[in-house]
Protein backbone atom coordinates (compact mmCIF):
# COMPACT_ATOMS: atom_id res chain seq x y z
CA UNK A 1 0.00 0.00 0.00
CA UNK A 2 1.33 3.42 -0.93
CA UNK A 3 1.35 6.28 1.57
CA UNK A 4 -0.66 8.29 -0.94
CA UNK A 5 -3.44 5.69 -0.91
CA UNK A 6 -3.56 5.69 2.89
CA UNK A 7 -3.69 9.47 2.98
CA UNK A 8 -6.35 9.75 0.27
CA UNK A 9 -8.49 6.95 1.71
CA UNK A 10 -8.49 8.61 5.11
CA UNK A 11 -9.01 12.06 3.60
CA UNK A 12 -12.19 10.70 2.00
CA UNK A 13 -13.27 9.31 5.38
CA UNK A 14 -12.65 12.65 7.10
CA UNK A 15 -14.30 14.77 4.43
CA UNK A 16 -17.39 12.61 3.99
CA UNK A 17 -17.85 11.74 7.66
CA UNK A 18 -20.98 13.73 8.46
CA UNK A 19 -22.49 12.88 11.82
CA UNK A 20 -19.38 11.00 12.91
CA UNK A 21 -16.82 9.11 10.84
CA UNK A 22 -17.42 5.55 12.05
CA UNK A 23 -19.86 4.51 9.31
CA UNK A 24 -17.98 5.95 6.34
CA UNK A 25 -14.66 4.66 7.74
CA UNK A 26 -15.92 1.08 7.80
CA UNK A 27 -17.46 1.51 4.33
CA UNK A 28 -14.22 2.81 2.77
CA UNK A 29 -11.86 0.39 4.55
CA UNK A 30 -13.91 -2.82 4.30
CA UNK A 31 -16.32 -2.43 1.38
CA UNK A 32 -14.80 0.07 -1.00
CA UNK A 33 -10.99 -0.34 -0.79
CA UNK A 34 -10.88 -3.74 0.90
CA UNK A 35 -7.83 -2.91 2.99
CA UNK A 36 -9.09 -5.19 5.78
CA UNK A 37 -11.72 -7.91 6.16
CA UNK A 38 -14.84 -7.24 8.22
CA UNK A 39 -13.36 -9.24 11.10
CA UNK A 40 -9.89 -7.64 10.97
CA UNK A 41 -11.41 -4.19 10.95
CA UNK A 42 -13.75 -5.05 13.83
CA UNK A 43 -10.78 -6.21 15.89
CA UNK A 44 -8.81 -3.03 15.21
CA UNK A 45 -11.89 -0.94 16.01
CA UNK A 46 -12.46 -2.93 19.21
CA UNK A 47 -8.98 -2.02 20.43
CA UNK A 48 -9.47 1.56 19.26
CA UNK A 49 -12.68 1.71 21.29
CA UNK A 50 -11.18 0.65 24.61
CA UNK A 51 -8.15 2.95 24.26
CA UNK A 52 -8.65 6.62 25.06
CA UNK A 53 -9.22 8.92 22.09
CA UNK A 54 -11.54 8.60 19.10
CA UNK A 55 -11.93 4.95 18.02
CA UNK A 56 -11.62 5.69 14.30
CA UNK A 57 -8.55 7.88 14.96
CA UNK A 58 -6.92 5.11 17.00
CA UNK A 59 -7.77 2.64 14.24
CA UNK A 60 -6.12 4.99 11.70
CA UNK A 61 -2.87 4.88 13.71
CA UNK A 62 -2.99 1.09 13.95
CA UNK A 63 -3.92 0.49 10.30
CA UNK A 64 -1.34 3.03 9.07
CA UNK A 65 1.30 1.34 11.20
CA UNK A 66 0.34 -2.12 9.99
CA UNK A 67 0.80 -1.16 6.31
CA UNK A 68 3.58 1.44 6.35
CA UNK A 69 4.98 1.91 9.87
CA UNK A 70 5.35 5.40 11.33
CA UNK A 71 4.97 7.13 7.96
CA UNK A 72 1.74 5.20 7.41
CA UNK A 73 0.35 6.13 10.82
CA UNK A 74 1.15 9.80 10.16
CA UNK A 75 -0.30 9.72 6.64
CA UNK A 76 -3.56 8.11 7.78
CA UNK A 77 -3.91 10.51 10.72
CA UNK A 78 -3.13 13.58 8.62
CA UNK A 79 -5.63 12.43 5.99
CA UNK A 80 -8.34 11.93 8.60
CA UNK A 81 -8.04 15.31 10.31
CA UNK A 82 -6.54 17.86 7.89
CA UNK A 83 -9.45 18.65 5.58
CA UNK A 84 -12.24 18.57 8.21
CA UNK A 85 -10.12 20.85 10.39
CA UNK A 86 -9.93 23.46 7.60
CA UNK A 87 -13.68 23.21 6.95
CA UNK A 88 -14.52 23.46 10.63
CA UNK A 89 -12.38 26.55 11.15
CA UNK A 90 -13.94 28.30 8.16
CA UNK A 91 -17.41 27.35 9.40
CA UNK A 92 -16.61 28.64 12.87
CA UNK A 93 -15.46 31.90 11.33
CA UNK A 94 -18.93 32.68 9.97
CA UNK A 95 -21.02 30.49 12.23
CA UNK A 96 -23.47 33.20 13.26
CA UNK A 97 -24.60 33.89 9.71
CA UNK A 98 -24.67 30.18 8.82
CA UNK A 99 -26.38 28.83 11.93
CA UNK A 100 -29.28 31.27 11.84
CA UNK A 101 -30.22 30.80 8.19
CA UNK A 102 -33.79 29.38 8.30
CA UNK A 103 -33.03 27.03 5.38
CA UNK A 104 -30.17 25.34 7.19
CA UNK A 105 -31.99 24.04 10.28
CA UNK A 106 -34.47 21.65 8.52
CA UNK A 107 -31.70 20.25 6.31
CA UNK A 108 -29.60 19.63 9.40
CA UNK A 109 -32.55 17.90 11.09
CA UNK A 110 -32.98 15.58 8.11
CA UNK A 111 -29.26 14.82 8.05
CA UNK A 112 -29.22 14.19 11.80
CA UNK A 113 -32.04 11.64 11.43
CA UNK A 114 -30.26 9.91 8.54
CA UNK A 115 -26.98 9.89 10.47
CA UNK A 116 -28.67 8.28 13.47
CA UNK A 117 -30.18 5.52 11.31
CA UNK A 118 -26.83 5.04 9.58
CA UNK A 119 -25.05 4.39 12.86
CA UNK A 120 -27.72 1.89 13.94
CA UNK A 121 -27.50 0.21 10.51
CA UNK A 122 -23.73 -0.12 10.79
CA UNK A 123 -24.00 -1.78 14.21
CA UNK A 124 -26.62 -4.21 12.82
CA UNK A 125 -24.42 -4.95 9.82
CA UNK A 126 -21.28 -5.64 11.85
CA UNK A 127 -23.26 -7.72 14.31
CA UNK A 128 -24.88 -9.89 11.65
CA UNK A 129 -21.78 -10.25 9.45
CA UNK A 130 -19.39 -11.17 12.25
CA UNK A 131 -21.74 -13.87 13.62
CA UNK A 132 -20.39 -13.74 17.18
CA UNK A 133 -21.21 -16.61 19.56
CA UNK A 134 -24.27 -16.10 21.73
CA UNK A 135 -22.43 -15.03 24.90
CA UNK A 136 -20.65 -12.24 22.99
CA UNK A 137 -23.98 -11.10 21.53
CA UNK A 138 -25.04 -10.84 25.17
CA UNK A 139 -22.04 -8.62 25.94
CA UNK A 140 -22.92 -6.41 22.95
CA UNK A 141 -26.53 -6.07 24.12
CA UNK A 142 -25.32 -5.22 27.63
CA UNK A 143 -23.10 -2.48 26.17
CA UNK A 144 -26.08 -1.15 24.20
CA UNK A 145 -28.28 -1.21 27.31
CA UNK A 146 -25.65 0.42 29.52
CA UNK A 147 -24.91 3.13 26.94
CA UNK A 148 -28.37 3.97 25.59
CA UNK A 149 -30.72 3.38 28.52
CA UNK A 150 -28.67 3.47 31.71
CA UNK A 151 -26.45 6.21 30.22
CA UNK A 152 -23.47 4.98 32.20
CA UNK A 153 -20.20 6.82 31.51
CA UNK A 154 -18.28 5.18 28.65
CA UNK A 155 -15.12 4.44 30.68
CA UNK A 156 -17.25 2.51 33.19
CA UNK A 157 -18.86 0.44 30.41
CA UNK A 158 -15.56 -0.24 28.66
CA UNK A 159 -13.69 -1.17 31.82
CA UNK A 160 -16.55 -3.35 33.01
CA UNK A 161 -17.56 -5.16 29.83
CA UNK A 162 -14.14 -5.23 28.08
CA UNK A 163 -12.59 -7.78 30.46
CA UNK A 164 -15.85 -9.78 30.42
CA UNK A 165 -15.81 -9.94 26.60
CA UNK A 166 -12.13 -10.94 26.53
CA UNK A 167 -12.69 -13.64 29.15
CA UNK A 168 -15.72 -15.11 27.35
CA UNK A 169 -13.97 -15.03 23.99
CA UNK A 170 -10.81 -16.71 25.37
CA UNK A 171 -12.92 -19.35 27.12
CA UNK A 172 -14.63 -20.23 23.85
CA UNK A 173 -11.28 -20.32 21.97
CA UNK A 174 -9.86 -22.68 24.59
CA UNK A 175 -12.88 -24.96 24.35
CA UNK A 176 -12.60 -25.14 20.54
Amino acid at each position, binding site marked *: MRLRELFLGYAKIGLLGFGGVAVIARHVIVEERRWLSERDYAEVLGLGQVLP*GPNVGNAAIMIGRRFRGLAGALAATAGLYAAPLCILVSLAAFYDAFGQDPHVAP*VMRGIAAAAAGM*VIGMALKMGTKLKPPVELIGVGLLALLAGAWLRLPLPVIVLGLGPLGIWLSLRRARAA
Partner: protein
Amino acid sequence: MILPLFWAFATLSLLAIGGANAVLPEMHRLLVEVHGWMDDATFGQLFALAQAAPGPNILAASVMGWNIAGPAGLAAATLGMLLPASVLAWCVAGLTARLAKSPWLKPAQFGLVPVAVGLIAASGVIMAEAAGNGWLPWVVIAASAAFVWRTAFSPLWVLAAGGVLGFVFL
Protein backbone atom coordinates in the same frame (compact mmCIF):
# COMPACT_ATOMS: atom_id res chain seq x y z
CA MET B 1 -2.22 30.51 27.93
CA ILE B 2 -1.07 28.14 25.19
CA LEU B 3 0.69 25.70 27.49
CA PRO B 4 -2.20 25.36 29.97
CA LEU B 5 -4.46 24.89 26.96
CA PHE B 6 -2.28 22.07 25.68
CA TRP B 7 -2.20 20.39 29.11
CA ALA B 8 -5.96 20.69 29.55
CA PHE B 9 -6.61 18.91 26.27
CA ALA B 10 -3.81 16.39 26.78
CA THR B 11 -5.48 15.38 30.05
CA LEU B 12 -8.84 15.09 28.29
CA SER B 13 -7.22 12.99 25.58
CA LEU B 14 -6.22 10.29 28.03
CA LEU B 15 -9.65 10.34 29.70
CA ALA B 16 -11.51 10.04 26.40
CA ILE B 17 -12.27 6.33 26.48
CA GLY B 18 -15.02 6.01 23.89
CA GLY B 19 -14.19 9.22 22.06
CA ALA B 20 -15.10 12.89 22.25
CA ASN B 21 -18.59 12.43 23.67
CA ALA B 22 -17.18 10.59 26.67
CA VAL B 23 -15.21 13.61 27.84
CA LEU B 24 -17.83 16.23 27.02
CA PRO B 25 -18.79 16.81 30.69
CA GLU B 26 -15.13 17.00 31.76
CA MET B 27 -14.29 19.27 28.82
CA HIS B 28 -17.11 21.58 29.86
CA ARG B 29 -15.92 21.57 33.47
CA LEU B 30 -12.32 22.40 32.51
CA LEU B 31 -12.94 25.03 29.83
CA VAL B 32 -16.00 26.79 31.26
CA GLU B 33 -15.90 26.28 35.02
CA VAL B 34 -12.25 25.78 35.98
CA HIS B 35 -10.45 28.06 33.51
CA GLY B 36 -13.32 30.34 32.43
CA TRP B 37 -12.03 30.37 28.86
CA MET B 38 -15.53 30.52 27.33
CA ASP B 39 -19.17 30.78 28.40
CA ASP B 40 -21.77 28.06 28.44
CA ALA B 41 -23.54 29.08 25.23
CA THR B 42 -20.33 29.30 23.19
CA PHE B 43 -19.30 25.85 24.39
CA GLY B 44 -22.63 24.36 23.31
CA GLN B 45 -22.57 26.10 19.92
CA LEU B 46 -19.02 25.04 19.10
CA PHE B 47 -19.73 21.44 20.05
CA ALA B 48 -22.89 21.39 17.91
CA LEU B 49 -20.92 22.88 15.02
CA ALA B 50 -18.27 20.16 15.25
CA GLN B 51 -21.01 17.53 15.22
CA ALA B 52 -22.64 19.02 12.15
CA ALA B 53 -19.42 19.50 10.16
CA PRO B 54 -17.73 16.55 8.43
CA GLY B 55 -14.92 14.74 10.23
CA PRO B 56 -14.29 13.19 13.63
CA ASN B 57 -16.29 14.80 16.45
CA ILE B 58 -13.11 15.10 18.50
CA LEU B 59 -12.33 18.14 16.34
CA ALA B 60 -14.68 20.01 18.68
CA ALA B 61 -11.51 20.44 20.75
CA SER B 62 -9.81 22.19 17.82
CA VAL B 63 -12.51 24.82 17.28
CA MET B 64 -12.60 25.47 21.00
CA GLY B 65 -8.85 26.03 20.95
CA TRP B 66 -9.35 28.39 18.00
CA ASN B 67 -12.07 30.25 19.87
CA ILE B 68 -9.90 30.63 22.98
CA ALA B 69 -6.56 31.63 21.46
CA GLY B 70 -6.65 31.78 17.65
CA PRO B 71 -4.34 29.67 15.45
CA ALA B 72 -1.92 28.88 18.29
CA GLY B 73 -4.86 27.73 20.41
CA LEU B 74 -6.09 25.57 17.56
CA ALA B 75 -2.68 23.90 17.28
CA ALA B 76 -2.32 23.42 21.05
CA ALA B 77 -5.82 21.94 21.45
CA THR B 78 -5.53 19.64 18.43
CA LEU B 79 -2.08 18.35 19.37
CA GLY B 80 -3.08 18.02 23.02
CA MET B 81 -6.17 16.01 22.08
CA LEU B 82 -4.47 13.77 19.52
CA LEU B 83 -0.91 13.25 20.69
CA PRO B 84 -1.23 11.28 23.95
CA ALA B 85 -4.00 8.98 22.63
CA SER B 86 -2.15 8.45 19.34
CA VAL B 87 1.11 7.54 21.06
CA LEU B 88 -0.79 5.05 23.19
CA ALA B 89 -2.53 3.56 20.13
CA TRP B 90 0.87 3.31 18.41
CA CYS B 91 2.36 1.42 21.36
CA VAL B 92 -0.61 -0.94 21.62
CA ALA B 93 -0.41 -1.61 17.86
CA GLY B 94 3.26 -2.50 18.39
CA LEU B 95 2.33 -4.82 21.21
CA THR B 96 -0.27 -6.62 19.09
CA ALA B 97 2.26 -6.92 16.23
CA ARG B 98 4.74 -8.53 18.63
CA LEU B 99 2.09 -10.90 20.00
CA ALA B 100 0.70 -11.71 16.54
CA LYS B 101 1.79 -15.33 16.74
CA SER B 102 0.24 -15.89 20.13
CA PRO B 103 -2.87 -18.09 19.84
CA TRP B 104 -4.81 -16.03 22.38
CA LEU B 105 -4.34 -12.57 20.86
CA LYS B 106 -7.07 -12.83 18.20
CA PRO B 107 -9.71 -14.30 20.53
CA ALA B 108 -8.85 -11.71 23.19
CA GLN B 109 -9.18 -8.90 20.67
CA PHE B 110 -12.43 -10.35 19.35
CA GLY B 111 -13.80 -10.19 22.88
CA LEU B 112 -13.66 -6.38 22.66
CA VAL B 113 -15.65 -6.28 19.42
CA PRO B 114 -19.10 -6.68 21.02
CA VAL B 115 -18.33 -3.81 23.40
CA ALA B 116 -17.41 -1.60 20.45
CA VAL B 117 -20.42 -2.64 18.35
CA GLY B 118 -22.79 -2.34 21.32
CA LEU B 119 -21.53 1.17 22.07
CA ILE B 120 -21.86 2.16 18.41
CA ALA B 121 -25.47 0.93 18.51
CA ALA B 122 -26.00 2.88 21.75
CA SER B 123 -24.73 6.11 20.21
CA GLY B 124 -27.07 5.48 17.25
CA VAL B 125 -30.02 5.08 19.60
CA ILE B 126 -29.11 8.25 21.49
CA MET B 127 -28.75 10.17 18.22
CA ALA B 128 -32.12 8.77 17.07
CA GLU B 129 -33.84 9.92 20.27
CA ALA B 130 -32.48 13.42 19.73
CA ALA B 131 -33.36 13.51 16.02
CA GLY B 132 -36.70 11.66 16.13
CA ASN B 133 -39.18 14.46 16.75
CA GLY B 134 -42.15 13.74 14.49
CA TRP B 135 -42.97 10.81 12.21
CA LEU B 136 -40.83 11.81 9.23
CA PRO B 137 -37.51 11.76 11.13
CA TRP B 138 -38.39 8.26 12.41
CA VAL B 139 -39.11 7.08 8.85
CA VAL B 140 -35.75 8.52 7.76
CA ILE B 141 -34.00 6.84 10.71
CA ALA B 142 -35.55 3.43 9.94
CA ALA B 143 -34.95 3.66 6.18
CA SER B 144 -31.38 4.82 6.69
CA ALA B 145 -30.63 1.98 9.13
CA ALA B 146 -32.07 -0.58 6.70
CA PHE B 147 -30.12 0.90 3.76
CA VAL B 148 -26.78 0.80 5.53
CA TRP B 149 -27.48 -2.64 7.03
CA ARG B 150 -28.70 -4.36 3.87
CA THR B 151 -26.66 -2.72 1.07
CA ALA B 152 -22.99 -1.97 0.42
CA PHE B 153 -23.70 1.41 -1.20
CA SER B 154 -22.03 4.50 0.19
CA PRO B 155 -23.80 5.76 3.35
CA LEU B 156 -23.61 9.25 1.86
CA TRP B 157 -26.76 8.51 -0.17
CA VAL B 158 -28.90 8.39 2.95
CA LEU B 159 -27.33 11.59 4.31
CA ALA B 160 -28.12 13.37 1.06
CA ALA B 161 -31.64 11.96 1.01
CA GLY B 162 -32.14 12.94 4.65
CA GLY B 163 -30.98 16.48 3.90
CA VAL B 164 -33.32 16.80 0.90
CA LEU B 165 -36.32 15.37 2.81
CA GLY B 166 -35.57 17.72 5.69
CA PHE B 167 -35.42 20.70 3.35
CA VAL B 168 -38.71 19.83 1.63
CA PHE B 169 -40.84 18.55 4.53
CA LEU B 170 -39.47 19.76 7.85
